[in-house]
């Protein structure tokens, strides 16, 4: 005979499976599941009993773009968590002093244009990082590896861009040194990816699906000048899509530890300093990218 307690927990497990636990109850139950094998067994029992209901739900085909996007997301989840690649190079955790050495990712064309590939990746990043926990330097470095896919050229037309640079980046045989920063909001949700290529002073800014810029306002990106310490504007952030912006005078002397984004009137701050509050920020990580030893799709 089952005890009332046992029945209660079994009913909790059942309601968890069918989805009727209240939000806070459900979250608490999920945390308990992590540590309680008996509770997990109860849940599995209910999943098994009720699975035939799922079998009555009509099948449905996801769209082609969703399928592509999902495959990319999974591939990139594999990059972030993968073991060392076929070469002898290993990914090291980055710190503000030590660059991270990465393998250039293989060219994974799927028969679609590089631009389309980048666009489907944007949506993927928004979702993947909305659920990520603390971001390590290694993760930021992995993002940089993805950003440097060869062949990326002109971004889609962005009417809000004050300056759009065509940055044609053929694959090189040399080590590339870049700096990356993931700008997150106060909740820790990533909003933008910024990549600085100090060899040519170019800065790439990619929106990770942030909420639209408030009406009549702009987001402006700032970095501390390496010599004077004064905040210097990098430019306005795009609402969506991406652009590549060249910033004059961006050089190895930049020792700013972080980017910051402030909310400004439309068109940006009328001064040489922020006038609005800081809404996003992110530390800057140096990264070195080495040429790939081989270009294959097998991992």
């Amino acid at each position, binding site marked *: 005979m089952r005890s009332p307690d046992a029945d209660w927990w079994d009913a909790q497990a059942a309601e968890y499976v069918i989805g009727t636990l209240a939000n806070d109850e459900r979250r608490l139950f999920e945390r308990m599941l992590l540590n309680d094998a008996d509770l997990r067994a109860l849940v599995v029992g209910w999943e098994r009993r009720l699975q035939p209901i799922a079998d009555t739900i009509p099948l449905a*085909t996801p769209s082609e773009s969703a399928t592509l996007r999902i*495959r990319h997301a999974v591939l990139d989840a594999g990059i972030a968590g993968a073991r060392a690649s076929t070469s002898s190079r290993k990914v090291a955790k980055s710190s503000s002093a030590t660059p991270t050495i990465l393998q250039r990712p293989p060219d994974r064309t799927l028969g679609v244009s590089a631009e389309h590939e980048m666009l489907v990746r944007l949506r993927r990043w928004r979702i993947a990082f909305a659920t990520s926990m603390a971001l390590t330097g290694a993760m930021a470095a992995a993002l940089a590896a993805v950003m440097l896919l060869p062949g990326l050229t002109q971004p889609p037309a962005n009417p809000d861009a004050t300056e759009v640079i065509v940055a044609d980046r053929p694959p090189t045989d040399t080590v590339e040194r870049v700096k990356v920063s993931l700008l997150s909001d106060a909740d820790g949700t990533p909003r933008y990816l910024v990549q600085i290529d100090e060899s040519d002073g170019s800065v790439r800014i990619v929106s990770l699906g942030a909420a639209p810029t408030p009406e009549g306002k702009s987001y402006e990106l700032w970095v501390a000048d390496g010599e004077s310490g004064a905040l210097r504007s990098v430019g306005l952030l795009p609402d969506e899509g991406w652009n590549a912006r060249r910033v004059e005078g961006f050089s190895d002397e930049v020792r700013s530890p972080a980017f910051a984004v402030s909310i400004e009137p439309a068109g940006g701050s009328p001064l040489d300093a922020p006038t609005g509050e800081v809404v996003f920020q992110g530390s800057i990580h140096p990264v070195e990218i080495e040429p790939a030893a081989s270009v294959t799709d097998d991992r």
Partner: protein
Amino acid sequence: MSKLTEPSASDDADDSLVVLLDRCAHQDIRAFDELYACVSSKLYGVALRLLREPSLAEDALQETFIKIWKKASGYDRRAGAPLAWMTSIARYQSLDMLRGKDRRQQAQSRLDDETRVMTQESSHGLEDGLADGELLQRCLGELEELQARCILLAYRDGYSHDELSERMNRPLGTVKSWIRRGLLSLRECVDALA
């Protein structure tokens, strides 16, 4: 990539999925492609039923496959049959997203859809032609009709207690105890006959 073929519940199909999951655990992207081709239509169907909007359901599907990919190395039979394991991931992901939306809004859209759902249900709420799960169908049939309907609407369509209370036009406490009692009766019946 995905085909509208019903994934079989046979042992052979199960074993194939287990092998694919093991290969995914070793970062085999071709195994992922095969897995996706096999189960995506089922998982997407489940997500779409719960979330109703294709773009949301696709988001849920993406999160589901990322989780499957990442958790593949930790999968073993104690977590259940592979398809049930993956279906559960899809359902919980979809439920998380569903509960995050404006509840008043979703309750209204459910009431608007009431006619469509009811005309698709038999008296105890299961569609005709249930191939597998005759056992479950029989046990659901032994419950009171409204108990069975609540369980189905919750599991399949993501109804919350509040929404069920509104739809059934019964007090919240009544609906909660229906579900609890109904689930425990279901367990007794299914486990006795299995």
